């Protein structure tokens, strides 16, 4: 195991976060605060409670997930795409590091950044609403599994993308709609029956639902199913990355 290699990549990526603190941390926190103002204050005044939880508090898990998913993908995809774009990827490819070590370095750093951000948003939310976390360990498990799996997804997107447009294509056209339609700001019980059924095909619903359960013990789907779903997604993302390294797809000609 090239532990020095893993740490080198990890530290390098974390240093990038420090350099881009405004973009990495301040911007998502500001956006989240705006969500609280718009959704919490404006809509929350019309929807008093959802399943016994105030609307402002109800949307906190969804807001955290929104940021976790987008930031995990963005951090990891940019982390691996940038060396490809400027050409410094040659060093990674010629170094004595295995696929697992490269993934540990890049995905580990991207997940750490997102995790830190998730906790900052949680702290920010506590200024706006009264929060309770019924199952902190389950909450932490969802945070870690989500950041890891979506960072892996971002890593795969970063390797697949060969221009900046492609880099933002999947997050913009696929992930963001899935998040908004995945019960981040509502319970699917509030939807007509047809849309409730359709929502069950949205994988993000399971994440948000499980994560919300860890806060308030309310969920759209069973928490066990949510955990199995995120573990399955983690395995799927790892398999895609394994395939990429095995075949050298878009990395080694």
């Amino acid at each position, binding site marked *: 195991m090239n532990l020095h290699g893993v740490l080198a990549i990890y*530290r390098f990526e974390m240093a990038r976060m420090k350099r881009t603190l405004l973009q990495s941390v301040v911007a998502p926190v500001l956006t989240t605060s705006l969500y609280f103002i718009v959704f919490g204050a404006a809509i929350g005044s019309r929807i008093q409670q959802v399943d016994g939880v105030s609307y402002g508090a109800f949307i906190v898990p969804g807001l955290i997930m929104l940021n976790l998913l987008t930031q995990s993908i963005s951090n990891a995809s940019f982390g691996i795409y940038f060396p490809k774009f400027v050409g410094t990827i040659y060093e990674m490819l010629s170094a004595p590091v295995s696929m697992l070590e490269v993934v540990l370095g890049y995905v580990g750093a991207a997940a750490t950044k997102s995790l830190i951000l998730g906790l900052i948003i949680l702290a920010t939310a506590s200024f706006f609403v009264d929060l309770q976390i019924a199952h902190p360990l389950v909450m932490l498990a969802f945070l870690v599994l989500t950041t890891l799996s979506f960072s892996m997804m971002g890593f795969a997107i970063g390797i697949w993308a060969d221009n900046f447009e492609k880099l933002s294509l999947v997050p913009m056209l696929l992930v963001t709609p899935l998040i908004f339609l995945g019960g981040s700001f509502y319970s699917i019980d509030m939807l007509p029956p047809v849309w409730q059924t359709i929502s069950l095909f949205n994988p993000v619903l399971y994440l948000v639902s499980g994560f919300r359960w860890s806060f308030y013990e309310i969920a759209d789907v069973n928490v066990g199913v949510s955990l199995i779903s995120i573990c399955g997604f983690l395995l799927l993302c790892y398999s895609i990355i394994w395939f990429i390294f095995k075949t050298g797809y878009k990395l080694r000609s």
Partner: protein
Amino acid sequence: MSSAENPILIVESLNKVYQGGFEALKDINLSIRRGEIFALLGPNGAGKTTLISIICGIVKPSSGKVRVDGYDIIDDFRKTRSLIGLVPQELTTDSFETVWNTVAFSRGLFGKAPAPDHIERVLKSLSLWDKKDSMVMTLSGGMKRRLLIAKALSHEPNVLFLDEPTAGVDVSLRKDMWKIVQELKAAGVTIILTTHYIEEAEEIADRVGVINQGELVLVEEKQQLMQKLGKRQLTLLLTEPLNRIPEVLGGYDLELIEDNRQLRYTFDSAAQRTGITALLEDLKTAGVSFSDLQTSQSSLEDIFVDLISQPVRS
């Protein structure tokens, strides 16, 4: 055991066919001695970068074997890659990092524990010490080139690949680079450089390989190559211009140049008899007089042009 008997790098029957069918390398066999400077010459697109990219692990071979210090580049990739340092042709650097951090990153990436003393030594030897805290983006082109060498040396490699190290750099920097290469050789590092600057190979290489259209045309000691393939020329400054070469001199490889004011005789430097004495006698007989003479030897560039202009075997 001599360095020739115990080579540090062995390439056997190496082939590379890219997607689309382009044959970049065709049955390459090459052995690199420990501690030598080997110059791989070839025109653009000859396969130089593909060859070193395969050895370094960046490009996958289609077939064939490569061993570095006895280790296979596929099966023992950790070992071989830790033995190799690569300086790429392009100035690809992490613009937003400091010089120190980017070199320290390279050392860690190659599996070595932090060693500030070693990095300090490398930066000082490459005249980058006073720039250690500068952002890479603020460095000049020459400094970036030296930084890439520093990154490649950060993990103390035994073999250093320099891909076109002086491409696009000025004469002064080129000479600095040659000095650095000689110092690395003195420190025991085996250096393989690709170049299309012939004078570079002529100046610093111990051996020369010529690659053309994916085939290794020859590998030879530089001096022997120049002796074997080099032509010498004798140029006579004629007292009076000649209209044509006298028939009595028809047996010599002569040509009139410089408005027929000079007569150039080309001969084989390796031959036992150069024919100069006989030529001078025959010139006297033919009544051709000259005021001065000079000899010259063809450069590696002439040899290289000769080699690559020959058709590659099918």
